[in-house]
Every structure is written in structure tokens, then in C-alpha cells.
């Protein structure tokens, strides 16, 4: 594989950049693989990469229905954070933060990781207390957290509404300075390029149509491009999890819902943090292109539509304008939607299943993008060793029947109430 470096950039300039290697190949599926990963999104690509890098398993195929990085990894608001209270989420995400920090070097691909900090605003004394508690929990787990009062928040984001007579006055906020954003497409492409270079077959435009399961063991998969034999299959298909689960006669504690995001027209730099509204569900950051990147609530009912409805968008942006009134002057540039695998407690599932050789990675709700490296790393471990790693031990499938839910934000079992 050609290394991306300043020297290669100069060298290729002499040939008008026409002789760069392809970043990944377009192989036809082989008859058999050691591991097949279904889903060529961030998590699937990362899983294949860590299977090859950490476990020396390179006879791996990634099966993708469309094109790699065309799903939620290309549709998110790129926020990376580990500001969780519960140990399972906190330790897992903080492990991921470390992988994020090294990612550009590790992948030889600039993912533009920008640790600009995230501020969760508080709008009441009770919320300040809750954030103090969350911040303390984070610090006990080695995660940076700073509780800010109203004046400290005002210094950082003076464009927010600090007037006295607003419905949701800003009391302060909880900041994780090491949180940030990254270039989402680069994450998918960087993992794909490295996985491909280590021998992983990235098979695009190939839809999984069924599974060969005999005597409780997986023997292969059926696809639109022929049958593939394998002893191990990893599912990383986010919003399509229920569709494939149905082919396996499984019902999961997952519902597929639609989440929208949008960007404004590009403007000059005004916001150098990620900020979330505390009296509803709204988050905002500014991209390097200058667009204000915004998102919020689910559309509120089961959906596979991959495009959203206006009432939710209006509701979300009303919250945004309440928080930062200048947003009302901006024109909307683009809106889009992606289908989320909403788990019943708001936390993910990375686990083995009752079928031998079938591994499950789903339930990422609003937070799949930031989990990409840690999810890939732990899922690769789970598949390679056929046992969960301590980092994903809590994300078990049976926690719903045993009662060990990881209920981070009180979203609970009714995803549509969020």
C-alpha cells in the first residue's frame, strides 16, 4: 500500500496525481472466509481492521449492501465524547477516546480529529446537581470533566442566549474538554484502506439474503452475489439489524427509528465547541467548512425511510433558536436522515448470540459514530476469541431479561418518548 505522506504527495504531483493506487480493491467474493462481517459502515470496517491488526485474522470479508460509508457513518453529526456516568459506557467510550487520539497516525489517514470540547448546558439548579454528579462519576473513571457556572459558560459561548427573561435560562454546564469531532467519511475510508491492505475483501453492492444455520451453528451466508461459507459472522448493520434478525428468527430489544440532522449555510467561525441544549434534545457544532451542524430528536415512530419529517425538524430547530437566537438568521443548506438501531435502554449490544458463530453489534442509538473504534476493537476481540472483552461485557444481549439494564439518561424502554 502506498503511504500517504508529504513526499508521496510531491512525487505524485509530477504525474498530475494520476498514478495514485486505488484506496481499496473491488474483489469478487471468494467461496469461503474465516470471518464475514455484514455491514460496511464505520463499525464493520473497524471490526475488520482490528481483526486483521490485533488478531491476525485476514481471511475476512465485509459484505455491504450499498457502498461503504453510505449509511450512518456518512450521515451523523461527527460528535466524539465519553461523558457517560455508568461504568460500562464510560470505560468503553474512554477506551475509544484513546483510539481516536491515535487514529490519524494509526490509519495513515487524516481523520481531522478535533478535540474541541463538548458543553452540556444546564437550565436549572437540579440539572446542575445532576451534572455535578455525572462529572464526578466521569472523573472517578479517569475522564476529564469540568463543571462550569453561568459566567464561565458565557465566556466560552457568548452567542448563546444569556438574557434574563428566557424560558430556559443557562445556569451553567458540564464540559468534557477532550471531546470533539472528526471527519466521518475519512474514518470509514481510513479503516477501509488499511483493512484492504491487510487482505480483507471489501465486497460492495452485495446484499445478504439469508443465513445457513444447522444444529445451532452458522455455516455460511447467502448473498445476491452467491453463497459464502464461513464459521463466523458478525452483524454490524445498525438500522437494518431487525431485518436480518428476522431472517434468523430472532426478535431483538431494538426498534428502528429515524434520526435527522441538518447543516446551515456556511458562515464565518463563531462556535469552536460542541454544545448541547439541556432542556430538550439539540446539539450543535460548526464544521471546518463553516456550516452549523445540528441535530436532535428522533422522528418519533418506527421508520426505515432514511429521510425525515418536518415537524420534528421544526421542533429541534426551535430548541436551537431558544439556545442560540442568531441561528434564526441562517438559511438551511441540507437536511438528511438515517435509520437508528434504538435499543430499549439506550445502550448498545456487542455480544455472542444463541447461534454458534453469530455475533451481534447493534443498539447504538444516537451515539454510534463516536463508538466506531472501540466498537470495532471489542467486536473484533469478541469474534476472534469467541468471548466478550471486559470492555463490552456489560453490553450483553441478555441484560434485558436479567435486569442489568444500562440506563444512562432515563430514556428507558420507550424509545419514542425520548
Amino acid at each position, binding site marked *: 500500500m502506498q503511504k500517504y505522506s508529504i513526499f508521496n504527495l510531491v512525487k505524485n504531483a509530477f504525474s498530475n496525481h494520476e498514478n495514485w493506487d486505488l484506496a481499496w480493491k473491488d474483489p469478487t467474493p471468494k467461496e469461503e472466509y474465516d470471518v464475514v462481517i455484514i455491514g460496511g459502515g464505520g463499525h464493520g470496517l473497524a471490526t475488520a481492521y482490528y481483526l486483521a491488526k490485533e488478531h491476525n485474522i485476514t481471511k475476512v470479508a465485509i459484505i455491504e449492501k450499498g457502498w461503504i460509508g453510505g449509511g450512518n457513518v456518512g450521515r451523523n453529526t461527527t460528535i466524539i465524547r465519553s461523558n457517560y456516568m455508568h461504568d460500562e459506557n464510560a470505560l468503553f467510550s474512554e477506551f475509544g477516546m484513546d483510539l481516536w487520539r491515535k487514529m490519524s497516525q494509526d490509519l495513515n489517514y487524516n481523520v481531522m480529529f478535533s478535540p474541541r470540547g463538548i458543553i452540556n448546558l444546564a437550565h436549572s439548579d437540579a440539572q446542575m446537581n445532576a451534572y455535578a454528579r455525572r462529572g464526578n462519576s466521569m472523573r472517578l473513571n479517569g475522564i476529564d470533566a469540568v463543571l462550569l457556572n453561568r459566567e464561565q459558560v458565557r465566556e466560552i459561548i457568548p452567542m448563546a442566549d444569556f438574557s434574563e427573561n428566557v424560558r430556559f435560562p443557562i445556569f451553567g454546564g458540564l464540559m468534557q474538554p477532550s471531546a470533539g469531532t472528526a471527519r466521518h467519511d475519512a474514518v470509514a475510508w481510513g479503516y477501509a484502506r488499511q483493512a484492504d491492505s491487510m487482505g480483507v475483501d471489501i465486497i460492495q453492492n452485495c446484499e445478504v439474503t439469508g443465513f445457513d444455520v444447522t444444529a445451532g451453528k452458522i455455516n455460511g451466508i447467502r448473498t445476491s452475489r452467491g453463497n459464502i461459507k464461513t464459521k463466523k459472522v458478525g452483524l454490524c448493520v445498525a438500522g437494518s439489524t431487525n431485518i436480518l434478525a428476522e431472517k434468523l428468527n430472532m426478535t431483538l430489544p431494538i426498534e428502528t427509528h429515524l434520526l435527522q440532522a441538518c447543516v446551515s449555510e456556511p458562515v464565518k467561525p463563531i462556535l469552536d465547541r460542541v454544545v448541547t441544549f439541556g432542556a430538550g434534545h439539540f446539539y450543535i457544532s460548526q464544521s471546518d467548512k463553516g456550516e452549523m451542524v445540528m441535530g436532535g430528536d428522533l422522528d418519533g*415512530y418506527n421508520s426505515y425511510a432514511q429521510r425525515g419529517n418536518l415537524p420534528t425538524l421544526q421542533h429541534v430547530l426551535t430548541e436551537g433558536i431558544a439556545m442560540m437566537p442568531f441561528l434564526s438568521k441562517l438559511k438551511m443548506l441540507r437536511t438528511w436522515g438515517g435509520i437508528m438501531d434504538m435499543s430499549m435502554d439506550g445502550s448498545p449490544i456487542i455480544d455472542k448470540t444463541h447461534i454458534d458463530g453469530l455475533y451481534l453489534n447493534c443498539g447504538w442509538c444516537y451515539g454510534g459514530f463516536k463508538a466506531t473504534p472501540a466498537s470495532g476493537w471489542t467486536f473484533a476481540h469478541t469474534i476472534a476469541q469467541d468471548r466478550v472483552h471486559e470492555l463490552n461485557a456489560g453490553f450483553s444481549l441478555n441484560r434485558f*431479561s436479567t435486569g442489568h439494564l444500562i440506563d444512562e439518561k432515563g430514556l428507558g424502554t420507550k424509545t419514542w418518548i425520548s
Partner: protein
Amino acid sequence: MLHIKCPYCGMRSQNEFSYGGDASVKRPELNKEISDEEWDNFVYNRKSLRGKHLELWQHLSGCRQWIKVERDTATHEIFNTYKADEEIS
């Protein structure tokens, strides 16, 4: 925006309704010994179908009745709406 025909009030905008989830889920019978698995299926596990989906909605900002709606989860086409206790053939 969805337009949902409330069986009591007629065609109304989505803004008047709130969503109640999969309507095909049945609560296990009372006074009967039930397994963890049955309880799990009732509380947590969902099919989340792509395509025709029978679901509960409440006409919250209207007559406040719960209704059943048969909707396509991929196209949002609404095929039919029913009263909550209506048997669907």
C-alpha cells in the same frame, strides 16, 4: 408530515398525535405462570418490521383516544386506521 385519520374525529395532522409503538404486542395473561422469555418478549423484544406495521397512536391533542394505525415504515403510507378495541381481520 403524516396525516392520520382518527376513527373518531377524521383526518388530522400528525402534530395532534403521539406514538405508542407496536400494536401487535400482547400482554401475557394475568394469573398465569409466565416464563422470563415471554415477559421479555412483551416488554423489550420487537420485530420492528420494514413495511406494513400495525401500531398504536393516541390522539393526544384531540379526542385523546388510543387508536391503531396500519402504516408502511418505509414509505409512511397509511393503509387503514382502527379503534383500539376493533378486531382486525
